[in-house]
Structures are given as C-alpha cells and as structure tokens.
C-alpha cells in the first residue's frame, strides 16, 4: 500500500486519542518508503499508529546474561512501571494463551514483543518456543524481541526463521571505558567477566549482531539509556555509528534511577536526566538519525495502547477461564485493521493537503515526575521568525481536546507555543490529587508535586479546575486556564498564546527563563 509522505508537515489534528502521546510526524523522517510501510501499524514505531494499535509484552524470559547498573533483578512490583519489571512469569504455553486471549479481546493488538524481564536471547528455548507457536496460531500478529545483544549473533538465523521483523538492541555505548561504568559484569563462555573487559565483549557482540540483522533485512531499532555524566555526550557517537550500520530508529530514553528501586544507580545517587538534557541530546542526534519520540518505557508485561496497561485484565487465572475462538477473532481483527488503516490514510492525506507550516517537531520524554526541572520556555530552536517568546503550556487533554479536569489528569501534554505554531514537546506524569475520599488526606502534597512537575510551564489548560489548585498554581507562576474546555488542543494553545501576545506578555525576557 502506498503511504503518503507526511514528514515535514505538522499533523493537522494534535493531541492523542490514547490520552497520551508524543506525537511526532517527523519521527519517520528519512525512513525509506519500504520501512515506513513495514512499521505503519506498529504502535512503538509509527507515530500515528500508536493512537490506534496496541502492543503487548509476554514475560517468558527471566534469565539474564549481563548486569546493568540501572536494573535490579530482585524487583517485580505491581506498582512499578519500568522495563524489566513484571508481575507474573509465564511459560511459553501460558504466553501463547495470553497472547491469543488479548488479541481476541483487544482487536487493536497488532504486536507481540518479548522483552524480558531478563534478556530474551539468554532464554532462547522459552523465547523461540513462544514465537514458534504464535507464528503458527496467530499469523496476524507481528513478533518483536529486544535484547542486550550479548547472545544476539548466535540467534540471528533463528530470528530470521521465525519471521521476526523487528529487533531492538539496547546499546548504551561503543566505548568499553564508558561501558565499564554501566555494566559491572557479563556471563561469557562459562565465566563471569567484570569491568572493561566485559564491556568490550558486549559492545563487540552488539555491533556484530546489528550488522548481521541488517544483512538479513531485519529491522533494527536501537535503544539507549541516557545516563548523565556517563554516556550523555557519547550517545551522539553511538547514534552516528548505529545509523551508519543500518539501524532504522534510535530511541534515547531517560535513565530511571531511584533509591527505592534498589539499582546501583539508584542507591549511588546517579541522577536521571532532566527533560531539557534529554531533548538537547535527541535534537543533537536527530541530524544523524530517526529519533523515536513517543516511547513510554513499558514494563516487560505491559498490555494495551502505549501509555496504558491492561495487564490486570489478563492474569493467568482470568485467561484460563476465557473461551477463545481465534478464527473468529482474526476476522474481527482484520476488519478493524482495514478500518483503521483507511482512517489513517485519510488522516495522512488530510495532513498532506493542509500544508501546515513545517515546524520541526521536537518531543521530549517525560522521565521522572518527582525530579522534574523543566526546560525553560526559551529552550527550543533559538530566534526564528518572531521575537515573541516561546511559551510552554501544559494541557490536561484527551482525544486531542482540552477535555480533562485538572485534578483528574494522569498526565499533562506539554506544548511549546510560538509564532510558528503549537508544537508537542513531551508529557509530564501527574499524580491525581483528587482521587476520591480515601486519598484526600494526602491531597495537598500530591497537588504540590503535580505543580512541581509542571515547572517551566506558564499556562495550564484544562476543562475545569478547583479553587484551591487555582490559587496554588497562580502562586507558582502558572496561569490556570479553563476557558478552552473541549476545544482542539493546538487551537486552544495558540489562542492563549495570541492572548498573551496581545497583552504584551511575550516580550523576550531571558532572565526569567528557568533552566534546569
């Protein structure tokens, strides 16, 4: 199917029907048409697909052959959401059953990934048995795998055989001296190897695996964890190298490090990057590479659209009770996919026809709500078009509209407004301070944390807002705005920006920019 080229054109309708996103049309910049077609219904790789299509991970791979300083193998907490964390380890048979159950219940589910909780290729029997069964029983599901790369060269043949067309390799460095600060050890040829020697072997295997996959025509995405002071500058070089070798997408993710997670970095006080650092690095890499902008750093057992997790609906005891007619489900799934594809095509055509200004889409990740020290409003691309200031605005949005009550927002979409238009720049998680009677005792501190998470934003748009948070937001220098309820987000953001402009509030004032 022919896909219109949407790069260079801002999407007409902003926001996200999943209620959460990192919309970026230019994410697919520079991809060949062939690759674009291959990833167009993959929620993790295609910007607009992630509003419509869902993914799931099955946790069949517990063993790992390396240790990373951002991982702790002891933790499997239901309340934690981060890679490497799962609640229920599955056998391949259970994983297949779960996948079929989810696919029948959530027809939007197009992609099944094995991502852990250990390294999938350090558990080759369990991983490939799952793939083998699914390829036979559910040929309409795309299969993906992620790996640290150590065992990758040994399994490329097998991956190709199972028709896996996307592999993610986590590559945090190409220099063993950097690697020695990230990987304390690897298990290699029946020995535990430490330090620089371990990193050198791992790096060599990752690069070899990447080359072998590309040679086989398997799509490779590279994940990198941004660790301030350890590999931040170095990731620019990583990006250049993996692109030169044929990776089609680079996903730089912020380090998640908290003492409570029990990881080396968490305990030793290694900080996570702030949004400005992440954005700067992604921008720096973007010249060389397609950068992924809407990753949500899912758990290794996540189920559903990106940004949501319906794993609780599919615990093994619930699945055992389900009757699944996969033949019938496949028909429903095919129908839905055809409908969504038509809808997406129409949307892409519309976007193409709209000829919106070619504002470069810059999206930053939302690492840790508690640690947010936001980029200043002037942190975008400097000095273009108008001397009027760029303004960061947080939006309690849903379905592309300013549709959520401030106190009910699970996250805020952050837009940068300027003369060039409204540009999505990231999402900030918020705790819901107004969650009902049971949690109200803690209300004030939660509200304070939410306001902290919005630091750097000058306006917050929402459908409604209570009296108390209104006052607190104003005191924090953030203007609450409930006047654009149910309006399309980008229009509302621009309306507010123009009001500020007319009121003379947008004179450049660099001294007030809050930089992290």
């Amino acid at each position, binding site marked *: 199917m022919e896909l219109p080229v949407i790069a260079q054109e801002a999407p007409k309708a902003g926001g996200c029907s999943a209620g959460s996103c990192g919309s970026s049309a230019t994410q697919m910049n520079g991809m060949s048409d062939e690759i674009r077609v291959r990833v167009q219904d993959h929620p993790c790789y295609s910007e607009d697909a992630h509003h419509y299509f869902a993914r799931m991970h099955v946790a069949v791979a*517990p063993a790992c052959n390396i240790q990373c300083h951002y991982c702790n*193998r002891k933790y499997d907490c239901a309340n934690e959401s981060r890679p490497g964390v799962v609640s229920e380890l599955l056998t391949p048979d259970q994983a297949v059953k779960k996948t079929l159950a989810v696919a029948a219940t959530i027809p939007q589910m197009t992609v099944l990934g094995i991502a852990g909780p250990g390294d999938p290729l350090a558990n080759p029997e369990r991983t490939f048995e799952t793939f083998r069964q699914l390829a036979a029983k559910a040929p309409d599901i795309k299969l993906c795998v992620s790996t640290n790369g150590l065992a990758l060269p040994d399994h490329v043949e097998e991956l190709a055989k199972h028709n896996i067309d996307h592999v993610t390799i986590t590559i945090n460095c190409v220099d063993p001296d950097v690697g020695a600060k990230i990987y304390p050890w690897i298990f290699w040829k029946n020995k*535990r190897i430490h330090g620089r020697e371990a990193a050198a072997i791992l790096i060599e295997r990752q690069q070899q695996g990447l080359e072998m996959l590309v040679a086989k025509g398997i799509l490779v995405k590279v994940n990198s964890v941004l660790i301030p002071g350890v590999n931040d500058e170095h990731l620019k070089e990583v990006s250049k190298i993996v692109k030169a070798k044929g990776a089609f997408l680079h996903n730089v993710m912020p380090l998640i490090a908290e*003492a409570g997670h029990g990881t080396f970095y968490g*305990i*030793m006080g290694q900080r996570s990057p702030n949004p400005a650092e992440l954005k700067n690095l992604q921008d720096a890499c973007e010249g060389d590479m397609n950068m992924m902008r809407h990753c949500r750093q899912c758990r290794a057992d996540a189920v559903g659209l990106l940004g949501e997790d319906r794993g609780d609906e599919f615990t093994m005891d619930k699945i055992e009770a389900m009757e699944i007619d996969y033949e019938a489900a496949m028909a429903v799934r095919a129908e839905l996919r055809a409908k969504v594809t038509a809808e997406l095509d129409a949307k892409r055509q519309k976007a193409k026809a709209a000829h919106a200004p070619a504002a470069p889409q810059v999206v930053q990740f939302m690492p840790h709500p508690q640690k947010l020290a936001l980029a200043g409003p002037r942190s975008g691309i400097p000095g273009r078009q108008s001397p009027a200031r760029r303004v960061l605005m947080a939006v309690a949005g849903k379905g592309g509209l300013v549709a959520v009550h401030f106190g009910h927002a699970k996250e805020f979409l952050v837009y940068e407004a300027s003369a060039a238009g409204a540009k999505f720049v990231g999402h900030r998680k918020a705790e819901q301070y107004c969650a009902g009677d049971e949690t109200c005792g803690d209300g004030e501190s939660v509200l304070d944390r939410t306001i902290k998470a919005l630091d750097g934003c000058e306006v917050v748009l929402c459908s409604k807002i209570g009296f108390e948070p209104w006052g607190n937001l104003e005191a924090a220098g953030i203007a609450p705005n409930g006047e654009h309820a149910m309006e399309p987000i980008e229009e509302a953001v621009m309306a507010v920006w123009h009001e500020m402009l007319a009121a003379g509030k947008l004179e450049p004032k660099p001294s007030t920019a809050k930089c992290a």
Partner: protein
Amino acid sequence: MALEIIESCVNCWACAPLCPNQAIYEAAPPHFPHFLIDADKCTECVGDFADAQCVAICPIEGAILDELGVEMNPPGSLTGIPPERWAAAQAEIAAR
C-alpha cells in the same frame, strides 16, 4: 561437596540450564518460587568448568552458599554497591 541455593533466589532460571549435572531444580511449595540444588548431584562443577556455573551467572548476592555456608557472591561483589551504602539507603527508605 555441594552448593546450596537459599530463599533469596529470585527464580530467574539463569542457573538451571548451565548445570553440568542437572542438579538444579524448581522447588515445590512451600519453597517455591525458587530453585534448589540437589546436593547428591552437585559437584561444584569440578572437572567440567573452572568456575561453578550457577555461581558465575547468579545475579543475586548471597543466594548461593558453599558447604560451609559461605556466600559465594558476597554483598557488593555483583552490583558494585558497597554494603554500607546499601544499608544506609535502606534505612533512609524505611524512615520515610
């Protein structure tokens, strides 16, 4: 001569396939979920490998003991976190 896996095992399955003697097995309740070593089968890999394989891949400090009860991977040896630093962080978290 045999090694022992204790309850701090997180059931990650890394060790079991490496054992040259198939001495490692999944415990039945009440010990489940973790692995155990059949002391009659364990040779500590002598004659097969330079290092005991379960010890060489286990990610959990203190989860495998030798026959004298000594931790084969003592605190700090795998994560690089100094034990006193770990203790201090746990105390701080508990006090929150």
